[in-house]
């Protein structure tokens, strides 16, 4: 994919002027959210970092930030911030056919479709390529059987980014295809998955003779591994909190909530303003340091030298996460910037999260034993403790990120993968004795 840029938008002033002109002409608190999103998408301002060919303006990260700054001034709602925009759209733009881009990407930006990610399986975690869900051709459709796990937003999703095995006679990386999969069909069962936090924000998804058109393969048939890499790289950027470029408010998405797009832009802004941020990443679950420091002061814990050291450590890592991101963005050119370096941000987020937990615990001391309504800071310290193990596991564990950093950033040789060249049907997977 090559990125083409709007030739007029070469500096911050030009971008600022162009956004203001667009807003003057199109932004109106009285039109419906649907109408506004449609104008925004058609103009290329919905995702200004993307190529002009596909819904964008081809801006560098720096210039895109200027654009978002202008939108922020009027609190303009942007496209939905979920997995569709974060993962599916860039993947389809990179690997899909022009028909697929038309079919899927616009509806993501306008909030018509919500997406989920159907990658991980019980037997395929770090070794995602050993996935066992099968898709077998039947006429011009594939029949899907198997199970996915750790699917977030599965209940509200209209489509899923599905990885399924389409050839078991070749080594594991070479027999996987990537589908745009319709979720609302009889062969799909979604079961909420309760996490250690007590929440069930993820689900298991079971497929029993579910169906997907052959035309919905994104990228090459059996070339799904390459397509999935684009999705995973975008995910790492998001989870490393490197995806901060966005509108101040994001629209909702999905066929089931289409009525929410009928409200006026003004009402929508008033409703969510000051509330939900546009960030789709995981950072939202990390406690703010400000609340902890205020709590420490209020309870006299700020006099404790150990607590002071922990506060300094947490502040340091949180700042470094942000500064690493700023440096990466400053270095990135238009259309670039996604690479294995994203794993550094992802790994850093694990450190930040653990440090936030330890700082919180040092501050609240014995009250760390309490949770929920009785727990300190309204239970959010207990929530932080319980959430902390997640970032080092999801979206590729810390160990996987270190492999990526070592091999793809530093150029160290790969660990021999003895399963790499074995036909999938002969492979041992997960905790089972045989893959198939």
């Amino acid at each position, binding site marked *: 994919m090559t990125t083409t840029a709007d030739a007029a938008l070469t500096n911050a002033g030009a971008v600022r002027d162009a956004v203001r002109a667009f807003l003057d002409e199109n932004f109106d608190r009285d039109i419906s959210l649907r109408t506004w999103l449609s104008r925004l998408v058609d103009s290329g301002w919905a995702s200004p970092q993307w190529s002009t060919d596909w819904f964008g303006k081809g801006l560098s990260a720096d210039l895109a930030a200027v654009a978002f700054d202008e939108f922020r001034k009027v609190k303009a709602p942007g496209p939905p911030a979920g997995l569709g925009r974060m993962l599916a759209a860039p993947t389809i733009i990179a690997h899909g056919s022009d028909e697929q881009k038309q079919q899927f990407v616009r509806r993501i930006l306008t909030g018509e479709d919500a997406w989920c990610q159907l990658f*991980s399986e*019980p037997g*395929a*975690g*770090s*070794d995602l390529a*050993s996935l066992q869900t099968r898709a077998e051709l039947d006429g011009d459709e594939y029949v899907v059987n198997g199970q996915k*796990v*750790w699917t977030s937003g599965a209940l509200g999703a209209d489509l899923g980014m599905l990885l399924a095995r389409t050839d078991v006679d070749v080594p594991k990386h070479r027999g996987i295809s990537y589908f745009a999969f319709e979720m609302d069909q009889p062969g799909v069962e979604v079961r909420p*998955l*309760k*996490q*250690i936090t*007590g929440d069930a924000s993820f689900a298991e998804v079971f497929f029993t003779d579910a169906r997907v058109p052959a035309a919905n393969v994104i990228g090459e048939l059996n070339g799904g591994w390459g397509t999935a890499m684009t999705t995973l790289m975008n995910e790492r950027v998001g989870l490393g909190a490197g995806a901060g470029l966005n509108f101040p408010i994001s629209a909702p998405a999905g066929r089931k909530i289409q009525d929410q797009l009928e409200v006026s832009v003004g009402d929508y802004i008033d409703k969510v303003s000051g509330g939900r941020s546009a960030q789709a990443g995981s950072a939202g679950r990390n406690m703010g340091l400000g609340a902890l420091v205020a709590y420490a002061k209020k*309870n006299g*814990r700020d006099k*404790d030298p*150990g607590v002071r050291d922990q506060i300094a450590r947490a502040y340091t890592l949180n700042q470094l996460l942000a500064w690493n991101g700023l440096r990466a963005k400053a270095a990135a050119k238009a259309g670039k910037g996604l690479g294995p370096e994203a794993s550094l941000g992802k790994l850093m987020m694990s450190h930040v999260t653990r440090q936030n937990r330890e700082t919180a*615990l*040092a501050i*609240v*001391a*014995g*009250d*760390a*034993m*309490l*949770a*929920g*309504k*009785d*727990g300190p800071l309204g*239970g959010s310290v*207990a929530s932080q*403790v*319980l959430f902390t*193990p*997640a970032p*080092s*596991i*999801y979206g590729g*564990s*810390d*160990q996987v990120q*270190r492999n990526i950093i070592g091999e793809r950033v530093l150029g160290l040789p790969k*660990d021999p*993968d*003895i*399963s*790499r060249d*074995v036909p999938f049907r002969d*492979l*041992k*997977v*997960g*905790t*089972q004795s045989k893959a198939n």
Partner: protein
Amino acid sequence: MSMAFNEEQDELRKSVRRFLEQKSSSADVRRLMETDEGYDPAVWQQMAEQLGLQGLALPEEHGGSGFGFLEQIVVVEEMGRALLGAPYFSSVVLAGTALVESGDDAAQKDLLPGIADGSTIATLAWVENPSDWTVNGISATAKRSGDGYTIDGKKTLVLDGHTASLILVVAKADGGPSLFAIDASAAGLTRKKLDSLDMTRKLASLELSGTPARLIGSEGDAAGIMERTLRLAIVALAAEQVGAAQKCLEMSTEYAKLRVQFGRPIGSFQAIKHKCADMLLEVESARSAAYYAAWAAADGTDELPVVASLAKAYCSDAFASAATENIQIHGGIGFTWEHDAHLYYRRAKSSEQFLGSATTHRELLAQQLLAAESV
């Protein structure tokens, strides 16, 4: 000081483990943690009647079996391993020890037999400030009233405080911090169960308003009683942490042998193998710390204050690390509610703070080292 348990102690461990495997399975733990009480009265009675665990280390003249602190350690280590939901730590380790340490014969005669045979569930309420586990800064006050006392004040982080029938409370009398016994049905006592991070360990807060109380020992005794009681309690807690950390190590190692990724068990990858090796070193070192402190307690040596804090600090860190790495090694499945990894993690992060954090105990350790003539 011999660094090994004798055959009788090994036998005790075996029978406790066998009992807990039957009575405190994962399903049992999960069933009880969802209840307010957090324990099964039938199992509690079996513990007392079949194994005599509640009275094991209490004096024979007051209904106990008169075994020593080493036996006590074996029992709590196994209970930690099984995450037993029961008021054992509160009733036996805290309240029982405080009564023994009070030296108040009459109170012991009245109160210990019930603790020893399990018919009394007791607890100890002293904490008011979550970052101070001493009794130095308490505000609760006790006033003479007739031939007894009445207490006013608030207590928090009271283990099983909502289910105990006997509550030992520390309050300031004219002579200084003093220990009192309160009946759970006493007037002016309001008890509130608190939501706890570790759902297998129940906590409550208390409000006392003119609540009638019986003085244990003499006025001003509580500083000494509590110092001695907590010194033994942190060693017991350290042993409990060792038992639970050992279980985390076993879960991790077993899963690392079973789980295949990239065509081989994940335990063959250095990233996982070295984690398990580090975990073993930490668990074994934690065991050395807890056992050495236990022997020091059993022998009543001068070292106890130093080694007790050393054990609490190190075992807290080792258990927290083992419980965290256990989730990491399990990956996604370790982050599910259905897997037991989070129950150990909750216990680890909770008991890390209970009775004072590692940082607090390292400071206590340093105080004592630096006060000594030479190290």
